[in-house]
């Protein structure tokens, strides 16, 4: 039957909405009992992951903020797989913040896939079954006789109906409660290489990012922030206000905001602004931080995070004691897109737009600040030019909102690179002291760690391997308060603790006269046969990545190549690494890193490789180069000329493998980073006999 344009319009008019999947996002166990025909924005208690219109257009909504981790691609891959459609048929859209439709609409902790795997599968499988039921009803056959393929239902007598043609009928059916998921051997999309859904827009330079937001009547602003711990006493704004393109200079919360018509006008005005600061206590410097580390190491008020057996007695009886201290500085997140945010605060409503990893807390914080109810605060999500944890803090959102409420204009607040690098919420600085006691056979009988962090909270991860394999353990944490602001930095705490643990175990193995890999395997065997206390990791999964990496990198079988080993469990994933170092002109050069990752099911192989390689490069670059210094509360350096970022001519070959065992997927944005500093430092030691105890190495 031919459809005339007139028919088409009439049909479309009848089919007023799109088929919105109805299932209860808040409880993956209980599917909603009814489906609904609603436009996506008005879906009420239903969640809109998936819409199919009667022309067969399939739209998948990705709720979580995209920061470069590939979630906007990976989520829809899972839905499309279970829906059984061609990836090419699908359109993906970023959903804005909607607390009624979505739960955990955030980016952080490598937790998105882990949290949503079942929900996403259910989202696809439910609709697939409804399509089959609609077709079965139409053809008067049993649903068991129907199959699906590439967005079509296929009947027993060769019938074929597209999802689009079935959408309206399917939408009127009850939502099935019993579902069967695809067998993973039948996966057509999951586990393949799926290209990023934003690639085309990225390579053609479309305005996707927060910094690209433009709204009617919008003005620009930059904010001058005080040194850490200082109070703004006065500022001279009279000359600045007269400068061309400058609209206003206002002050709030120790900050001075310059509002202007364009970025360059504001940049010039900043150069003319002088601010006077005062402070009650002395402002912090590197020396202050060193003193606080020393005090923390001596402190008798350390918080005991874990205690197994009797460490003091065991270490006193040890045949050999190994002790080592590791230290890392504050570092900046330095995403390529500096912090920025748009806010338009009106008397009774707010529009927020921009790059945040946590839109819901941002909305709540602005609500608390401005005393405007959350349901009057709309949050539009932009793509994020990286974040690495920085956009988990909402300081920059609050600033934009407060400034807009003062100047009563829509405003885009942009941080310069210097603002971004000196403006805080850093990876906390920390010092770690490890002690291990060996018996006469070289077995570890005692293990202790004290972490002293500066605004780090608990700077240890007290249940980390090899804890669980050792009889006598003492893990303590001291948190020293600093005026320097800190926040999560990709793989919080473990981004450095991972290096310290893995470098220390390497040293222990050497003193014990054991191969570092064999020593770990023996410890894991103990965890399996004689576990001590609470065990938070699965020893068998640990063993698998270790064995695979040893085989793939030919551990100790490559003459002239110096290798270093590490293995780490974080964010529910396991990563083992072997780094290789060659000495060129007397200097060690990291030439290769082999990594084996167990993150369960690999959803998108291309994205997974990107995350592993990116995290290793990130871990290596920051281990080698990154450091902020403090003088009178001011951080330096303030830009990439002196704060060195790893570049394309400094990267090793990276060989990334996945166990891909079909277990429900776990995190991948972070887990490959923590083992990196350790594998590299251990390889450098193998090549040079010089151990690194501090980051940066250079």
């Amino acid at each position, binding site marked *: 039957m031919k459809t005339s344009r007139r028919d088409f319009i009439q049909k479309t008019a009848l089919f007023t909405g799109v088929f919105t999947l109805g299932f209860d996002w808040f409880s993956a166990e209980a599917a909603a009992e009814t489906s609904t025909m609603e436009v996506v924005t008005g879906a009420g208690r239903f969640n809109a992951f998936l819409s199919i219109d009667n022309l067969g257009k399939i739209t998948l909504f990705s709720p979580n903020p995209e920061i470069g981790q590939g979630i906007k691609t990976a989520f829809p891959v899972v839905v499309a797989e279970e829906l059984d459609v061609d990836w090419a048929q699908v359109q993906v859209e970023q959903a804005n913040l909607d607390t009624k439709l979505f739960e955990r609409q955030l980016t952080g902790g490598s937790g998105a896939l882990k949290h949503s795997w079942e929900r996403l599968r259910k989202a696809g499988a439910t609709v697939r079954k409804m399509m089959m039921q609609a077709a079965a009803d139409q053809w008067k056959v049993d649903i068991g006789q129907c199959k699906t393929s590439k967005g079509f239902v296929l009947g027993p007598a060769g019938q074929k109906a597209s999802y689009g043609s079935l959408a309206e009928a399917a939408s009127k059916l009850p939502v099935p409660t019993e579902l069967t998921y695809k067998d993973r051997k039948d996966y057509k999309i999951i586990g393949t290489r799926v290209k990023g859904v*934003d690639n085309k827009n990225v390579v053609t330079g479309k305005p996707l990012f927060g910094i690209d937001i433009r709204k009617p009547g919008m003005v620009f602003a930059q904010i001058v922030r005080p040194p850490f711990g200082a109070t703004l006493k006065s500022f001279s704004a009279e000359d600045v206000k007269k400068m061309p393109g400058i609209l206003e200079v206002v002050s709030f919360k120790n900050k001075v905001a310059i509002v202007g018509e364009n970025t*360059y006008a504001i940049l010039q005005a900043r150069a003319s602004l002088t601010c006077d600061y005062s402070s009650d206590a002395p402002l912090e410097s590197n020396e202050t931080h060193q003193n606080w580390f020393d005090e923390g190491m001596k402190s008798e008020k350390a918080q005991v995070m874990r205690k197994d057996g009797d460490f003091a007695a065991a270490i006193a009886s040890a045949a050999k004691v190994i002790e080592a201290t590791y230290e890392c500085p504050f570092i900046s997140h330095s995403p*390529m*897109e500096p912090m920025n945010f748009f806010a338009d605060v009106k008397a009774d409503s707010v529009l927020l737009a921009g790059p945040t990893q946590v839109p819901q807390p941002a909305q709540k914080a602005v609500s608390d600040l401005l005393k405007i109810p959350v349901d009057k605060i709309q949050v539009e999500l932009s793509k994020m030019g990286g974040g690495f944890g920085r956009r988990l803090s909402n300081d920059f959102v609050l600033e934009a909102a407060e400034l807009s409420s003062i100047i009563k204009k829509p405003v885009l607040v942009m941080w310069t690179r210097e603002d971004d690098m000196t403006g805080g919420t850093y990876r906390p600085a920390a010092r770690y002291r490890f002690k291990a006691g060996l018996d006469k056979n070289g077995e570890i009988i005692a293990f202790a760690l004290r972490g002293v962090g500066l605004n780090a909270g608990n700077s240890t991860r007290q249940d980390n391997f090899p804890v669980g394999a050792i009889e006598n353990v003492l893990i303590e944490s001291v948190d020293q308060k600093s005026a320097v602001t800190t926040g999560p930095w990709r793989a919080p705490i473990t981004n450095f603790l991972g290096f310290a643990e893995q470098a220390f175990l390497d040293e222990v193995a050497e003193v014990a006269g054991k191969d570092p890999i064999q020593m770990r395997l023996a410890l894991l065997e103990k965890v399996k046969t004689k576990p001590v206390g609470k065990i938070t990791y699965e020893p068998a999964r640990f063993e698998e990545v270790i064995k695979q990496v040893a085989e793939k990198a030919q551990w100790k079988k490559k003459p002239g190549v110096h290798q270093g080993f590490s293995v780490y469990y974080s964010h529910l994933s396991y990563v083992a690494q072997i780094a290789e170092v060659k000495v060129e002109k007397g200097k060690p050069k990291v030439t290769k890193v082999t990594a084996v990752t167990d993150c369960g099911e690999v959803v998108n192989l291309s994205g997974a490789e990107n995350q592993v390689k990116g995290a290793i490069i990130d871990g290596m670059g920051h281990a080698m180069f990154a450091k902020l210094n403090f003088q009178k509360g001011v951080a330096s350096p303030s830009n990439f000329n002196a704060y060195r970022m790893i*570049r394309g001519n400094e990267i090793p070959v*990276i060989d990334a493998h996945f166990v891909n065992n079909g277990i429900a997927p776990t995190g991948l944005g972070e887990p490959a980073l923590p083992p990196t500093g350790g594998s590299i430092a251990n390889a450098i030691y193998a090549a040079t006999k010089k151990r690194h105890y501090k980051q940066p190495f250079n």
Partner: protein
Amino acid sequence: MAINCTVNKKKVSLDIDPNTPLLWALRDHLSLLGTKYGCGIAQCGACTVWVNGEPTRSCVLPISAVSNAQITTIEGLDSAGKHPVQVAWDELDVPQCGYCQAGQIMTAAGLLKKNPHPTDQEIVDGMSGNICRCGTYHRIQEAVKLASKKTKK
């Protein structure tokens, strides 16, 4: 006095402070938002555009220096994304966050224009001025190589 130049084959006249860096003229005055701000001191390459065909850091180049020049931004490379470098970038799934990629692509396309079939080392050297915080360097280098293969000998 207004500065006249050509941006993506269109004649434009900029009647603004002649010291304005080209980057901000493009973004704030011409609404060409594809070119990105990364550092403002010519260290990261996110702002790379072509000035008379030559890859240039637009964040430190005042518009007074581009009078009568031909400027090409990412939007003007090929708006349909069919330039071999753009095609290769998509094919090898280079972008993670994507923010630095306009600068990477303009640098890569500039490199291939001068040297259509660079050696591996020439690719590494030619691309090392651009920072990618996500660490997409391997794929950047592979994509330049792929684009080179797509460029007719």
